[in-house]
């Protein structure tokens, strides 16, 4: 069979591990049970991680969607030379999150970082950035935005390009402003693309992990300790496999719930 190799590989290295994650969470000291989850729910670290993850995602996904929409509108205009800008905006996507984190980390440096020098020049005192527990998470959000928006922009741009321009003609004749045309015509037309971007963006942000592992190590004071990093630590530092699996299962359930919710939200709009 031609599909043999691909299927065997997918079963062993994709589907089986998914099953195993689900199973390991309900397996405690050699017998079935929910002890792992009960232990987890009595653990303050877990609740803190959960809160950090939720807090970050409430902010990051809408921001990324809005910025990438703005970018998509900007680069969808048919002007000479616009493709250069399209490429420039997309460039950070080709750079790995690791390198992005390292470059920004040096720019965020408290004493020798360029950002603090710029802030000083316009009269703002030094900021802590990654060292400040109030700012560290938002620095990571900024890095993820810098790297992420170009990617989502391309999907939205493809959606915008797919719209038949003749639709606008009567609206323009009726005197609808650009703003009105966007809200009532353009956005509803690319709803499916927006839905895809929302779901995919949520998924990737919920599992964002590299900046925490490389720069902050979950700190300062647990302020960037997202669930994915907690799961990584459980498995590879504390060698507590069932805890790690339980956390990943919770993450997957959260992602699933949010995606279902987003589907619901965007489909009811259609009925209005």
């Amino acid at each position, binding site marked *: *069979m*031609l*599909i043999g190799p*691909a*299927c065997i*590989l*997918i079963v*062993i*290295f*994709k*589907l089986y*591990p*998914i099953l*195993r994650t689900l199973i390991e969470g309900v397996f405690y000291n050699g017998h079935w049970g929910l002890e792992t989850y009960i232990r987890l729910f009595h653990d303050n670290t877990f609740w803190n991680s959960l809160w950090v993850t939720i807090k970050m995602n409430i902010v990051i996904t809408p921001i990324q969607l809005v910025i990438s929409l703005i*970018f998509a509108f900007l680069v969808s205009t048919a002007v000479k030379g616009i493709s250069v*800008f399209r*490429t*420039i*905006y*997309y*460039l*950070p996507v*080709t*750079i*790995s*999150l*690791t*390198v992005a984190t*390292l*470059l920004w*980390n*040096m*720019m965020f440096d408290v*004493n*020798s970082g*360029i950002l*603090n*020098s*710029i802030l*000083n*020049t316009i009269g703002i005192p030094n900021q802590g950035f990654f060292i400040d527990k109030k700012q560290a998470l938002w620095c990571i959000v900024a890095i993820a935005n810098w790297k992420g928006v170009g990617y989502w922009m*391309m*999907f939205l741009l*493809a959606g915008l390009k797919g719209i038949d321009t003749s639709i606008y003609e009567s609206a323009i004749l009726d005197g609808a402003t650009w703003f009105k045309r966007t809200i009532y015509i353009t956005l509803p037309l690319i709803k*499916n*693309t927006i839905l*895809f971007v929302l779901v995919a963006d949520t*998924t990737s942000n919920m*599992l964002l*992990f*590299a900046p925490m*592992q*490389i720069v902050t190590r979950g700190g300062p004071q647990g302020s960037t300790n997202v669930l994915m990093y907690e799961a*990584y630590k459980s*498995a*590879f530092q504390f060698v507590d*496999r069932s805890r790690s*699996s339980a956390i*990943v299962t919770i993450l997957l359930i959260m*992602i699933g719930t949010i995606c279902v919710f987003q589907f619901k939200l965007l489909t009811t709009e259609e009925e209005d």
Partner: protein
Amino acid sequence: MRVSVQAADYRGGRLTMTRKVISHAFFWIVLIMIAIFTMFPLLWGIACSLRSDTEIFKYARPLSYHTFVPVKFSLDSYIRIFRDFKFQRPLLNTFYVSAVTIIAGCLINSIAAVAFAKFKFKGKKIIFVAILISFMIPFESITLPLYSVVNSFHWVDTYTGLIVPCLADGLVLFLFNQFFKDFPESILEAAEIDGASIPKIYFKIIMPLSMPVFVTAALMVFMNEWNAYLWPLVIARSPGIRLVQIAIASFKMERVTLWSCLYAASIISALIPVVFFLPFQKYYVQGITSSGIKG
């Protein structure tokens, strides 16, 4: 400004012209500012990689011309990362792993995709749905159990462990499938009547006619492999088979103060995918967006 623009609307004539000029200028200014913001970390990184650490720290503040432009250009940091820190090792490792994954991965996924697109067989739908699920579940979430699977094969710290789990990729398979669905049936039938075997049809007919999709898939796999972090981090731990992203991250952890070298390493690893991406960007973006929108 808004008031004046509206006023211009009514007066028409020359003022509409100024209005157009203003909004055009505004549009370009916004475009350019975003471009500067987007490119800034890269340009800054390049500038810093071309100077010594002393210079970086000396001119860090207050802000001046020399904060951005090196006083003395030097390639020392680039020489050092190769001579002292053996940066070529992770680079070559990553090229090797990427090359094997691209060739084997494209073969395996495209062959399966041909089967899905052109043949009828029992359970086709169920298997295809299972494959779709496999690429909707993010890789990060299965990393930990995947580690124990690979561990039970004794593949930890081997190239096999780095490569084999990443070969079959639902997204790449899906991309091929989308393309092969529109592949003209008549060509395949003609070949079959001529008595060509399936491997012959695949290598002599399908492959040469599907080059764009192969390029897209190869580039997709390359970007994934080049930028992969979590999987190589857990599976390839010994310095000998470290991949590039891990090498840079650990370099940062071990030698915190060597900024110029860190910048140099970052710039090299950032520019390599860019070099591969630029000539094929049209295919790549098309491939990615079409697989996303139809999926």
